[in-house]
Structure formats: C-alpha cells, structure tokens
C-alpha cells in the first residue's frame, strides 16, 4: 500500500504540467488540449483523442453506453481549470496510469460547467477554480475522490481573487488531511488564505497594476464560496456575498448565507468590534464595503473577518445539482429561478437554444468577454446551464462580473 501511494505521488508529480492557451469555445479548447497531450506519453494521446472525438449530444438515444464508456476512460485523467482573465485559460493536467491507481467509479466523476463574464464592469475581478479529485482517499480495492469548486469575487483589484484561485484548494486539502473535521479545516484554511493575502497586500508585492500606484493594496479583497463534494456529503464554506445553492427534488436550498453588513448577527459582531455600518448605497461597513466578511481588505479589520460559515449536507437521491455563483448573478436572479433554468438545461430542454457561438450572441448584452467551459472534460449540459445563467443575469441588468459553476449531482445519468 505504501509503495503504491509513493508511486502514485511520484507519477502525479512527473505528469503534472501547466498549459496556457486562449480559448473561447469548448471545441477549440478540446482540440488544443488534445494537441498538447500529444506531446506526452502514448497512453495520454489515446485517452485525449477519445475525449475530443466525442461528438454526439449528451442526451441522444444510445449515447448512454458511449457516455459511460467515455467516462471510464476519462476517469483516468483529471484536469483543473483556472480562469486567469476572461480570455485566458490555464489548464493543469494530471494523468494517472491505470496500472498504478484503481479507476474511480465512473459515476463518481463530477459533471460540471463554468461560465464567467465581465459584464458591464470594466475589468474582470472574479476567479473560478474547479478541481476534480483534488483530494484522494484510497483503499486497497477502490479510490474515492473529493471534488472542489470555488468562486471568488474580487473587489478593489483582482489579485486577491486570483491568489485564492491558486491557493485555497491546496490549503483546504492540507488542513483536512491534518484534521478530518470540515468546520475546523475550512476555518483554518480560510484564515491561512487571508493571512497570505494580507501579507501580500501590505508588502505591495501583488505585482498588479494597483501596486504601481501606491505603497499598499489594503483596499483589495475577495469573497470565497467553496464546495467540496464527497461520495456522501456536500460541504460548503462561505465568506462574503457569493452563494451556493443546492437543487434537491426540484427545490432550491441555500447552502450558504450571504454576509451582508445588515444581517443582524453580523451587525452585532461589527458593532461589538467597534465598527459601524452606514447605509451608503446600501449597508456598508464604515460606509465603504458592502459585505461583512472577506479574504483580504486589511484596512477594514477587525470589522471584516475571513472566517467562513460552513455547512455539511448529506447527499440524497433527490439531489439534482449544485450552483456556486458570485453576487453578480444572485443580485438579479433568485435561487428558485436559477434552479428552474438549470433544471431545464439538465433535462435537455434547452439544447439547441444556446448558440454554438456564444460570444457572438452575447455581444448584444455587453458581455464582450465570455469564457465558457469547465476544463478538458466539461459536461455540455452543465456548461449550457452556467452560460444561460450568466446571460440571464446580464439581461436583467447585472452591473457586476458574473461567475457561475454548475455541478450535476444526479447519479442515474
């Protein structure tokens, strides 16, 4: 067992590589990924070609068998997608040889989609991270994976959100491996993330535009709504006003609670710390920040804290999907409406309505920068669902960046 684990780790290290490319369509990104993969070992070539060759729509009759087969093969490869900017995608690929690790149950492989738009905001300050199998729990006969997704809505500048995208999942994994208590490990990882960005802000070492102008970046921060999916549970940790919503048996269930300064318990906490909430274009801490918790924002501590609120929900047969999104969506779309939209997509009722050239279609509503896709192994229906939600938010005059992750939780598809 120890030997297997050692080999596994070595293999992961050896085969990890970062591929940077620009992509605006799923097909193009798949092709490029396949091309990149071709430069690695033969086994990988076969696997990626198989994936990129998959052309049939998800819900066509007879596709289920092909889909199942594809998933079995695909399960041997994992990919992680980072959104650097709306036009640039960073793909981190890991390949695992089947001779080293037992393949995960194909049905355990997450089906997800991501969409992120700049909207009317001048710059993209959101970041999204999706890490299938970011933490593995292996036994002699099987391997189960925990899957991670996070949405980070930055303010003041983008570098805190970008740093969360790069680091937070690593901290969560480290803390959970150290102590398998979700409440504690999430709290510790968020605290560590906050400490890292506070140090970065204070040193002016963030190396982005704002650093050129001033000696510190104290007014930069980010929300963080994070979900870890295990075979048995859905864990959500939230800090700020992004949100996680579960759709179960067709009904919307909020798995996080927004940290607004006028939430009674948050208002009490802020005042007890000597701060004030002033209504200036809505409730704001010291009249400045519209959320009561965030990663970063050095100048507003101790009123604005980084401690997450954690929920642990047992998975159930009636679970449909999970949505993680920034407030650019939730400010203009209710939980119930978002669930209705996604259900339509996942049931195949919206196929064909979402343009194959989403960028062109989106131009009319001011979304000049659209990134669609959840990585090398996106689920088409989930992608369409997340894209549709961003379009809906823009149509309803959302003035913010909008980022959405949709994860299909059904087990019988």
């Amino acid at each position, binding site marked *: 067992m120890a030997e297997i684990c050692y080999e596994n780790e070595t293999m992961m290290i050896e085969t990890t590589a970062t591929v940077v490319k620009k992509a605006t369509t799923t097909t193009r990104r798949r092709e490029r990924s396949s091309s990149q993969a071709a430069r690695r070992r033969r086994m990988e070539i076969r696997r990626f070609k198989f994936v990129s060759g998959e052309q049939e729509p998800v819900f066509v009759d007879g596709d289920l068998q092909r889909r199942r087969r594809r998933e079995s093969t695909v399960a041997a490869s994992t990919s992680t997608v980072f959104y650097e900017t709306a036009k640039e995608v960073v793909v981190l690929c890991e390949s695992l040889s089947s001779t080293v690790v037992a393949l995960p149950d194909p049905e355990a492989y997450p089906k997800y989609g991501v969409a992120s738009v700049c909207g009317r*905001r*001048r*710059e993209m*300050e959101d970041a999204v991270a999706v890490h299938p199998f970011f933490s593995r729990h292996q036994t002699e006969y099987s391997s189960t994976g925990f899957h991670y997704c996070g949405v980070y809505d*930055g*303010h*003041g*500048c983008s570098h805190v959100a970008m740093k969360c995208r790069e680091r937070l999942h690593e901290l969560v994994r480290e803390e959970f491996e150290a102590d398998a208590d979700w409440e504690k490990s999430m709290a510790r990882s968020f605290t560590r993330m906050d400490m890292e960005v506070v140090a970065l802000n204070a040193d002016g070492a963030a190396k982005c535009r*704002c650093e050129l*102008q*001033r*000696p*510190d970046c*104290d*007014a*930069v*921060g980010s929300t963080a709504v994070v979900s870890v999916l295990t075979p048995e549970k859905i864990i959500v940790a939230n800090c700020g006003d992004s949100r996680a919503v579960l759709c179960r048996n067709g009904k919307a269930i909020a798995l996080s609670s927004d940290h607004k300064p006028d939430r009674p318990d948050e208002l009490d906490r802020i005042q007890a710390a000597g701060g*004030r909430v*002033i*209504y*200036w*274009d*809505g409730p*704001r801490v*010291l*009249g*400045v*920040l*519209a959320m009561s918790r965030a990663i970063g924002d050095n*100048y507003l501590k101790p009123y604005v804290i980084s401690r997450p609120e954690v929920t642990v929900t047992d998975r159930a047969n009636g679970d449909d999907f999970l949505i993680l999104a920034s407030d650019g969506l939730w400010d203009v779309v209710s939980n119930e409406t978002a669930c209705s939209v996604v259900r339509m997509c996942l049931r195949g009722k919206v196929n064909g309505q979402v343009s194959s050239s989403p960028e062109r279609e989106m131009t009319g509503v001011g979304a000049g920068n659209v990134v669609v896709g959840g990585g090398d192994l996106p689920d088409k229906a989930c992608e369409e669902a997340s894209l549709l939600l961003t379009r809906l938010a823009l149509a309803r005059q959302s003035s913010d960046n909008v980022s959405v992750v949709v994860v299909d939780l059904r087990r019988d598809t």
Partner: protein
Amino acid sequence: MESSKQKRCRSSVVETIEAPLPLVWSILRSFDKPQAYQRFVKSCTMRSGGGGGKGGEGKGSVRDVTLVSGFPADFSTERLEELDDESHVMVVSIIGGNHRLVNYKSKTKVVASPEDMAKKTVVVESYVVDVPEGTSEEDTIFFVDNIIRYNLTSLAKLTKKMMK
C-alpha cells in the same frame, strides 16, 4: 434655491505625518495624481488644464477620477479651485460623478509641525458637503472623515516609504 434647502454639514480631519513639509506637499499638490495616496482611486485623467501654472496644475483644472470596485461609487469629476505653493493650501470641489457627495468642497492646508518643524508635518483637511437624502448628518460626517483619514494614513505610509 434648491441648494439652500439641502442640509449641509462640515468637518475637519487632522493628521500629523512623520515627514518634512516639502515632501508631503509635493504629493498632495499633484492634482493630476491623486492615486498616489488616495486609497480608493484607481486612476485619474486630466480633462482640462487651467490657464496658469504648469500643464494640468493650474487653477480651474478638472480631473476625472476612476474609483476602485467595491467602493460605493465608480467615478468622480473634480476641479482645482485654488493651489497656493506659498501658504501650502489646496482647494478642490467635486463637480460630478456617480456618488452621493453633492456640493462637496474641501480645503487642505499643510503646515510644519510645531513639535519638530524639520521632520513633522500637520495636514488639515476641512470640507463642506450636502447631507444626502436618507442619510443622517452624523453618518455623512463619519463616512467622509473616514475616507479622508484613510487617504492621509496612506499618505503617511507613502512618505515613510519614500524617505527610506
């Protein structure tokens, strides 16, 4: 007439900075570069330069300021009413923008600190502004004082860094 019906409020913020007056004044007086020390300013573009003084620094100059995201405003248009390098006084009015500070006018005066005239500087920023509808005078003063204090704290950090 409408203006006279609006309630107004005024306040002053005083900050002592551990830096010589010429250094502090050189940063404060740069009307075209508020982002050097103003915490919530992302960038600044000069709209027009006044007739006198250097380009963009004369009386009547107007700047368009872009503010950082997350702040309760996106942009502000400001005019330089007065800039006196002898008495170290600067007067700025806000003449537009999508914020709630209407009829805002501030006067910033810089003097050498009596404690240590060569190494310490006292900055006094006084302002007058309309109290926005739906907001109390107390909250308005708290908010604006807070912004000014953050800016002057940032100025103190900047001058400290420049003296290293």
